[in-house]
């Protein structure tokens, strides 16, 4: 009686089982199906690399004035206008003070992306923390959710404008350089005013998760609340967090550019895409590229991030998966 039990023929595997796929390779397979998300992710990677590595390769000082070569058109204008003043030394042209526009675009993109990423991480941290606390601890729930509702009805842009204008001077003193002070200020105000959606989503998921058996099992095994949150709850809410992170990045980039556009952002010799756009508006009719290049850069980056978020949501949400 030692021979193994044979499955009946219909239940036998007629080919070897496929190797087990991990959850993340499953997600990756699903993500690859979404063409827009792949392109968006690729473009985001490209922009990030360009603003990180670009200034090393194109090592022209973005603030260098060269009045002899001012108002140079981008190289592509030569395609339809042979009269245009173009120069291979300035592929994206130069502005009215002769500053190289390509170097400015790279430096501006570096600022915009840095602010976007940092603000997104801050708001993600706040949102996840508040969401988990509200979902897990019942006595904190009411208070934290009222706080979230309150923040949701705040007039965000007016408050940002007020905060950035009024706190500009002291932070400049604290952090030494005006750029650093402004960076910390903008990142913190954007982070503090944009965590609410993440918090709501995370809270909802934690509320459902904490009633599940594995949490009960962990608790009966003597796991502390801290352990349950870090080991069991957070890994399970990682997908909504990742998805709201992408949308948070898009919002942060747009908010920073809006502030720069309205003239309350970084100091005037420090390029960002929003400020380059605002500066270009004055001479937009003669030199449309001054507006088009930064505008397209912002729009494409945000579009890429949004597509990436769409794809991630489809890939990470098992209910939508496979549709």
């Amino acid at each position, binding site marked *: 009686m030692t021979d193994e039990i044979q499955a009946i023929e219909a239940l036998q595997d007629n080919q070897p089982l496929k190797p087990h796929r991990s959850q993340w390779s499953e997600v990756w397979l699903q993500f690859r199906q979404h063409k*827009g998300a792949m392109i968006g992710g690729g473009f985001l990677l490209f922009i990030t690399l360009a603003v990180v590595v670009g200034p090393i390769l194109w090592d022209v000082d973005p603030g260098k004035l060269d009045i002899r070569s001012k108002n140079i058109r981008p190289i592509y204008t030569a395609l339809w206008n042979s009269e245009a003043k173009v120069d291979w030394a300035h592929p994206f042209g130069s502005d009215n003070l002769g500053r190289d526009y390509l170097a400015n675009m790279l430096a501006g993109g570096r600022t915009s992306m840095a602010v976007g990423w940092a603000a997104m991480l801050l708001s993600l941290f706040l949102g996840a923390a508040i969401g988990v606390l509200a979902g897990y601890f019942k006595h904190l729930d009411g208070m934290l959710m009222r706080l979230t*509702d*309150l923040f*949701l*009805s*705040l*007039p*965000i*842009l*007016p*408050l940002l*404008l*007020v*905060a950035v*204008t*009024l*706190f500009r*001077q*002291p932070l400049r003193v604290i952090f030494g350089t005006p750029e650093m002070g402004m960076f910390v200020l903008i990142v913190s105000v954007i982070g503090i005013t944009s965590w609410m959606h993440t918090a709501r989503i995370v809270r909802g998921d934690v509320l459902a998760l904490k009633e599940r058996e594995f949490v009960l099992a962990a608790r009966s095994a003597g796991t502390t609340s801290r352990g349950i949150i870090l080991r069991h709850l957070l890994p399970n809410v990682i997908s909504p967090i990742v998805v709201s992170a992408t949308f948070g990045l*898009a919002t942060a980039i*747009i908010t920073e*550019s*809006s502030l720069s*556009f*309205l003239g*309350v952002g970084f100091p005037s010799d420090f390029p960002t895409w*929003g400020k380059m*756009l*605002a500066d270009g*508006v004055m001479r*937009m*009719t003669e030199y*449309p590229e001054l*507006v088009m290049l930064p*505008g397209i850069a*912002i*729009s494409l980056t*945000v*579009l890429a991030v*949004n*597509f990436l978020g*769409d794809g991630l949501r489809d890939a990470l949400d098992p209910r939508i998966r496979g549709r």
Partner: protein
Amino acid sequence: MLTYTIRRLILSVPVLLFIALIIFMLLQLAPGDPMAQVPLTVPPEVKEKMREALGLGAPWYVQFWKWLVQMLWIEPKVFLDWLTTSSAWFSWLPDTNVYTACGAGVEGPCDLRVISWQTRSPVMDIVIQRLPQTLWVVGLAYVVAFFIAIPIGIYSAYKQYSAFDQTGTFITMIGFSVPPFFTGPLLIVIFSVYLGWFPSIYDTTHTINNWDDLVIQIKQMIMPVMVLALQITAQISRFMRASMLDNLKQDYVRTARAKGLPERVVVLVHVLRNSLIAVVTVIALAIPGIFGGSIITERVFKVNGIGDLLIGSLFASDMPMVMTLTFIFAFLIVMANIIADVLYGVLDPRIRYD
């Protein structure tokens, strides 16, 4: 429903007070000195007197309380007086005289209004002049966006994955991503510089007396409204599509089809009504962003609404104006949220707020 509305209105009072406190503390903590612009030749003791005259010497809670009294008690009195004496609808009522202006020759208690440091005139007088422009632009943008977005959302969901759906989704994604401070200048270049169809600057002094004036008014409103509407359209149509897709899979749709209702009725009556419910919440959540967008739009097209006023007074460090305007933005957002919640209850009979 009425009790719910009243309860929400009452509950909004502490929320608004708290928001006012946040704004006030932000302005208090800010180190900017309103006396910084005063020439250095003015002696320090005179400066100190000027500070006291502005009410800056008092502790913050006194200042906050005084602002609250001025904003929520004295300003309504002024409004009531105006309503009964010179407004078009209510001037038949007996004239009230509850507001006593301060000034020379006034005996006894008098009412001080919130005064702008920049113009030395009451803040609310300026706000009342500016508010209609903002509300017109934002309101019209919502209406336009609604009428564009709903059909797109319906058709995209009904023909899911069709060419229309694919292009529609792509275009709304673009509308979602392109910021208003880029679309604004772009529209100006295309439509007022190259084509010359619309003026690039909004003329507020324009009054409408005949048809030609109306045409001019419409022309100057098109671009600001469209910039704002693009943002809203993108959001609404995305959610409309998602919520239509959810509803089209429901059992009641199959039942409706099975009992032989025409397809038009199934989609446009049964599914549409149920899908609109979810969209209402989205509209409510998007409102703060839209008011933010309206500030930028007003700046781009030089519409002299309250957003433009806010930026101007911020740069002039006119604190009473900034405080009042930010509070008004908060008030508009809270009210819009209440309207959306009440509408949600009206549209969806399953929801009972008791």
